[in-house]
């Protein structure tokens, strides 16, 4: 009896209860989205007669916003990984003078509030004609993704043995070749982790969508929900249906990549 007794199904039951409590708001969001339209939403505990009209309204009003969000989030993911992967490789494997300083700088960016960035970018974007543009929003949204991806990829790449890289160098591979054919394939897991997070950061962005858009040309779904709240509070079912649709990517990615997400939180925060 030296081993700690493995807890059995009672703990599982307790765990399910805890999870149900934590996820109740998510359930309630889905429940509300299935109610019929009305000024006052008095949802029952269960959607006994599910009504999909909320989704019909949501897709009609916010369908474009969902596509916009997807484009922006994918753009930001590609940009963040393209910038972060080579940088993380350099920081992890080249003995660069000032490398530690750069890494410290990346950490400090985490403390910069988005509103400070938005405040300054608004004026600059106005001058450059980047307000109300996909490019502008993708670039701004990547302020969350780039530093995070550098931290996650750096933490991972540091564990890639230097000997492998040096062996490839001795065989005559150039730096670019080593990066492309040795480092990147070895880092697939970390790339997926970083990619999932940068996608979700950009998908969830609200602040930059709110501040760097003055028209409806580029209106991600998060901004759509917020404007709904102001204008259409009489159609709560549509508001909640939009919220549910906006949550789908997070739920799907969590199911597909649950281990990597937990690993990403830990390696991004505690290095």
């Amino acid at each position, binding site marked *: 009896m030296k081993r700690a007794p493995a807890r059995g199904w009672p703990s599982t039951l307790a*765990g399910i209860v805890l999870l149900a409590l934590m996820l109740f708001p998510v359930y309630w969001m889905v429940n509300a989205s299935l109610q019929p339209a009305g000024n006052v939403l008095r949802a029952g505990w269960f959607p006994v007669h599910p009504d999909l009209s909320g989704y019909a309204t949501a897709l009609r009003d916010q369908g474009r916003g969902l596509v916009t969000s997807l484009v922006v989030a994918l753009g930001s993911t590609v940009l963040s990984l393209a910038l972060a992967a080579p940088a993380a490789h350099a920081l992890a494997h080249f003995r660069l003078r000032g490398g530690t300083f*750069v890494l410290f700088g990346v950490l400090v960016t985490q403390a910069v509030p988005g509103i400070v960035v938005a*405040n*300054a970018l608004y004026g600059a974007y106005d001058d450059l004609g980047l307000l109300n543009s996909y490019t502008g929003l993708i670039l701004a949204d990547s302020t969350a993704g780039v530093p995070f991806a550098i931290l996650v990829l750096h933490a991972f790449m540091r564990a890639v043995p230097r000997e492998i890289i040096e062996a490839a160098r001795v065989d005559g591979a150039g730096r670019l070749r080593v990066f492309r054919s040795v480092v990147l394939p070895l880092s697939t897991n970390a790339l997926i982790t970083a990619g999932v997070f940068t996608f979700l950061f950009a998908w*969830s962005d609200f602040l930059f969508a709110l501040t760097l858009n003055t028209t409806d040309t580029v209106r991600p779904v998060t901004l759509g929900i917020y404007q709904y709240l102001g204008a259409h509070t009489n159609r709560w079912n549509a508001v909640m249906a939009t919220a549910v649709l906006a949550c789908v990517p997070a739920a799907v990615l969590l199911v597909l990549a649950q281990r990597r997400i937990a690993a990403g939180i830990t390696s991004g925060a505690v290095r």
Partner: protein
Amino acid sequence: MRSGSRRLPDRIARWGFLVPALGYLLLFFGYPIARNIAMSFQRYTATTFYTGAAPFAGLRNYADIVSSDQFPKLLLTTALFTAGSLAGQFVLGLALALFFHRRFPLGGVLRSLLLLPWLLPLVASGTTWRWMLDTDTGVVNRALRDLHLVSTGVPWLTGTSQALVSVILVNVWVGIPFNATILYGGLQDIPAHLYEAARLDGAGRLASFRHITWPLLRPVTGVVLVLGVVYTAKVLDIILVVTGGGPADATQTLATRSYELSFQQFEFGRGAALGNILVLLSLAFALVHLRANRRALNA
């Protein structure tokens, strides 16, 4: 000479990997910070966008903000929001981490599903909470009434003293998974044989928590708390969606007020000044805490 000429292109090649990211960080963090500092010393308002004129204003923006009647309340609300959120997230996150640290069937799956609140767009979950907390139709009040805990609806979002509690509650809910995950990682790193030894010495659960878990978790606790303050102090989405800073500015923090100044009153100079105060405060906290932590670890 030859080795020098061979090394120089290689040095350029090595930096070539870093330069694009560095350039991005300078443009999207370095430049905004510099411009924000410059703007905070200017009278930068809506007219600036038409005339291009932003006259130098010295410290007037800062003086206006600091001397306003609102400022002490703004600081207090920010501090309460940050401290309240952090305390709730940390305690509940640690409790969940300890719970899931013990192995049981399906534990891993349940633990990852727990991450969902943290991953959802804040606007979506904030909207849900806003409706759940509605005085007349919200499910929270309905449950409280059904349990006979209250007779009349609690004005969660419209009462000046309740609103702050509500946004803290929502932010705690959002932050629990993050805290639980990092603390769980910390717990996993504590060698199991320490617990076995403690058990052999007759230590109970409480004693082994106090003498093994808590001290060995300290570095992780430090990280969670510093990150928590830095992340929480700048929270904007939740407050904007759930209460919009109201009622009567009861949930207005430095971050939301900075947004309001710049993007609703178009007082970009003052918005910038307030943003800078926020950055300074959270950096100061992080530095003080890191230093205290290092001293504690060295001692």
